[in-house]
């Protein structure tokens, strides 16, 4: 049994629930069929199991080291990534001309799920590279694509995204990295960048020939002043090594590693403070300043970067999901083999009877069932969102494309935040199932927990996601996104209402959605933006649980159509768990929101 991901579950989600084979109706995927999807999943499972999983713990115990000159890391990281790149996985979703196989996004994400579950630290390098290359593919010029995108899809260059600065994390409007125009070049308008970027994953390493940094910076106005706010931000390609006209590696650019951050988890990924334009060790063209090529229009950088950020947010959700998923499988395996105590039978406990596997204890099954509901639900949501991307990019029906866009807008904060919160909780429960052993570093589950603790923080914190959902997404275009979601949920509710075993859940979900809509209206009727948004993270959680109840009802609908077996029984039981144990948590949250509670808002700094 794989301890990374259940293939039976993945097959169920892809083929029996989402019917991803139907995507072959689009010309882009016409050459595909289930056997090509399966072959990709088989290869991914194999490479993840054989090359990524074995060094997951080693990567954590021997984190990358910076001696002031070079970064060194565990020697199994590079061969694993070489195997990944050689198999063509970096370009899986791309056109054949980029070495790709035009794999649908949903299958690409399912494939990548294996790597995230096997070794999240090593997987961060391809994760960032693919996001970087996709962003440049959309916004770069043909010359920029040739110089920086092709080598990334070929696995020769890796990529990063450089947004945060030591003084500006969530608040991007306050970045001060400066880009001074120098003249035009074959690779676009050329600038000299100076500044510092913080929390840059994959910012320095020797795993690839070159590193392509996508950097947000501000171009000063005629008076040399930076434009305040996000409107002044532009996007730049800053390669570690400049690229010659013939594609060979050129001079070392003026971007240097100032230091590595020492993290709680995700230790296999170098996380860097980068200095741009130090002018001491590297002076390209004999001058200080990191050479950067502008991508897209001046002052429109953040819009371009959002392309990468939205993709990264769903990706972070998937990473959180997979850490929870592998933790759940580890806990399940442990619970089936670890013997401890005896279950009370008819006349009480029989002390002389052999000890039983701990899965025989009801409370252990409760913890496993909670994990199952969180991780399988989260995976289903992430794959659902990925399939929306496929339809959004390929449908020839403009109204359908628009609907997919709206659904993605409103579901992205959930796809990011819900797994980050609840699959982390699953990791906590996995430790609990292991008991004292789970708290030791001899077992794997404590690392999953530490790794997963990052996910509610990066790519927009939990609080930022709450503001995005309540402050922006549910009210965008007069609530069009919320209406689009309401419509798909209503369809599931109608289908489930016709199934006797699911009719009660259908009714509950219908009411829950209704309450959510009422509360949303009420919050926005407050007439005071501070009051509206005061409890947005509670709103995010209530919204997320309602969405997941819908996802579980959908899975139950798919499962009850199949021949009854242990697998389908497990799905139906997890659905029951979600509706009986989890969805009721939403009621008090909505009450608190509807009451416009201001307890947190009214609290004063001095009172702490």
């Amino acid at each position, binding site marked *: *049994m*794989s301890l990374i991901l259940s*293939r*039976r579950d993945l097959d169920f989600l892809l083929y029996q629930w989402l019917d991803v084979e139907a995507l072959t109706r689009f010309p882009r995927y016409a*050459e595909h*069929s289930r*056997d*090509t999807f*399966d*072959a*990709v999943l*088989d*290869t991914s499972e*194999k*490479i993840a199991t054989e090359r990524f999983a074995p060094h997951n713990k080693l990567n954590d115990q021997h984190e990358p080291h910076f001696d002031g000159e070079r970064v060194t890391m565990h020697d199994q990281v590079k061969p694993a990534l070489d*195997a990944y790149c*050689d*198999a*063509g*996985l970096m*370009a*899986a979703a791309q056109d*054949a001309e980029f*070495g*790709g*196989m035009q*794999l649908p996004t949903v299958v690409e994400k399912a494939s990548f799920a294996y790597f995230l579950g096997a070794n999240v630290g090593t997987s961060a390098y391809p994760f960032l590279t693919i996001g970087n290359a996709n962003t440049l593919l959309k916004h770069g010029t043909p010359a920029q694509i040739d110089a920086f995108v092709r080598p990334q899809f070929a696995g020769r260059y890796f990529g990063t995204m450089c947004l945060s600065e030591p003084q500006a994390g969530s608040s991007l409007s306050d970045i001060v990295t400066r880009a001074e125009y120098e003249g035009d070049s074959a690779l676009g308008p050329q600038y000299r960048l100076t500044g510092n970027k913080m929390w840059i994953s994959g910012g320095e390493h020797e795993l690839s020939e070159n590193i392509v940094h996508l950097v947000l910076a501000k171009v000063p106005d005629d008076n040399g002043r930076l434009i305040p706010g996000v409107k002044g931000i532009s996007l730049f390609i800053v390669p570690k090594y400049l690229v010659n006209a013939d594609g060979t590696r050129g001079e070392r650019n003026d971007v240097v590693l100032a230091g590595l951050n020492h993290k709680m988890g995700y230790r296999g990924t170098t996380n860097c403070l980068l200095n741009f334009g130090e002018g001491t060790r590297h002076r390209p063209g004999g001058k200080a300043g990191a050479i950067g090529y502008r991508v897209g229009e001046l002052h429109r950088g953040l819009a371009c970067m959002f392309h990468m950020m939205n993709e990264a947010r769903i990706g972070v959700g998937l990473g959180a999901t997979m850490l929870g998923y592998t933790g759940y499988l580890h806990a399940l395996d442990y619970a089936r083999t670890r013997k401890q105590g005896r279950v009370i039978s008819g006349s009480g406990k029989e002390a002389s009877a052999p000890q039983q596997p701990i899965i025989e204890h009801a409370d252990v099954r409760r913890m496993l069932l909670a994990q199952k509901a969180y991780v399988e639900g989260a995976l289903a949501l992430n794959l659902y969102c990925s399939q929306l991307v496929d339809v959004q990019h390929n449908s020839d029906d403009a109204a359908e494309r628009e609907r997919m866009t709206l659904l993605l807008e409103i579901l992205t904060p959930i796809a990011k935040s819900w797994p980050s919160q609840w699959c982390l909780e699953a990791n906590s429960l996995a430790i609990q199932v292991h008991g004292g052993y789970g708290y030791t570093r001899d077992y794997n589950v404590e690392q999953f927990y530490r790794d997963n603790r990052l996910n509610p923080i990066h790519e927009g914190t939990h609080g930022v996601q709450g503001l995005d959902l309540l402050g922006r997404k549910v009210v965008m275009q007069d609530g069009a996104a919320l209406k689009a979601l309401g419509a798909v949920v209503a369809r599931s509710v109608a289908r489930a209402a016709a199934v006797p075993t699911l009719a009660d859940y259908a009714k509950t979900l219908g009411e829950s959605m209704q309450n959510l809509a009422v509360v949303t209206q009420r919050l926005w009727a407050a007439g005071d933006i501070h009051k509206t948004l005061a409890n947005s993270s509670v709103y995010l959680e209530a919204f997320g649980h309602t969405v997941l109840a819908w996802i579980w009802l959908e899975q139950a609908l798919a499962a009850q159509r199949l021949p009854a*077996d242990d697998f389908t029984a497990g799905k139906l039981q997890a659905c029951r768990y979600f509706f009986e144990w989890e969805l009721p948590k939403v009621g008090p949250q909505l009450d608190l929101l509807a009451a416009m509670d201001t307890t947190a808002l009214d609290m004063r700094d001095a009172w702490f």
Partner: protein
Amino acid sequence: MKALVSVKRVVDYNVRVQVKSDGSGVITEGVKHSMNPFDEIAMEEAVRLKEKGKLTEIVAITIGGAKNEETLRSALAFGADRAIHIKEEGDVQPLTAARAFAAALKKEGAQVFFAGKQAIDDDANQTGQMVAALLDIAQATFASKVELDGGKAVVTREVDAGLETLEVDLPAVITTDLRLNEPRYLKLPDIMKAKKKPIETVTFADLGVEKGAALTISKTSAPPKRSKGIMVKTVDELVSALKSKGLV
């Protein structure tokens, strides 16, 4: 020079195989299947020999039901040029398989027949040897090194005493052992290319082979559970325990 490589679809090596409750066999329904790992090694070796210019064509061959096409597609993605699918839904015993492979080998005029030394489902370790016997050609089994040159093959074999090197005339049967090579991972673009490569479907009748059943399976059962060990306090106690069991 052409090589025929047999690839068998078996229950994946990671699956914990379970015996059916009526003892008629093991559960194969709803269980992950993949290419027999020893056959993967045979495929890899053939592809490496082709990359070195020692082979000009690789033909993958399998016997089995419709799902075996997946295994052939994997072989084609590995690097086989085309494939032959001997369609048969029922159970096939080693001798029947060997007769079919022998007929195909003759028909194709292939110089080398590569196969895994055994398949991990029944571990019979018979088919390759039988193919050689039926055609009265040389065999070099359990290969850990293979060199092809000028109508001959030099094969290093893994035997109980160590390694044995044989030189055999072609055509010959070569069955592959674990240490011969490490099979590559399939490349995604090759998975797409494999879709366009031809698979020829034939039946036993087309090959002039009658499906025999020389063996009957009377019962399948799980191996007996290991009984609990005992701790002895002294060496003397150990020796007497071994003696009483007739082990020394």
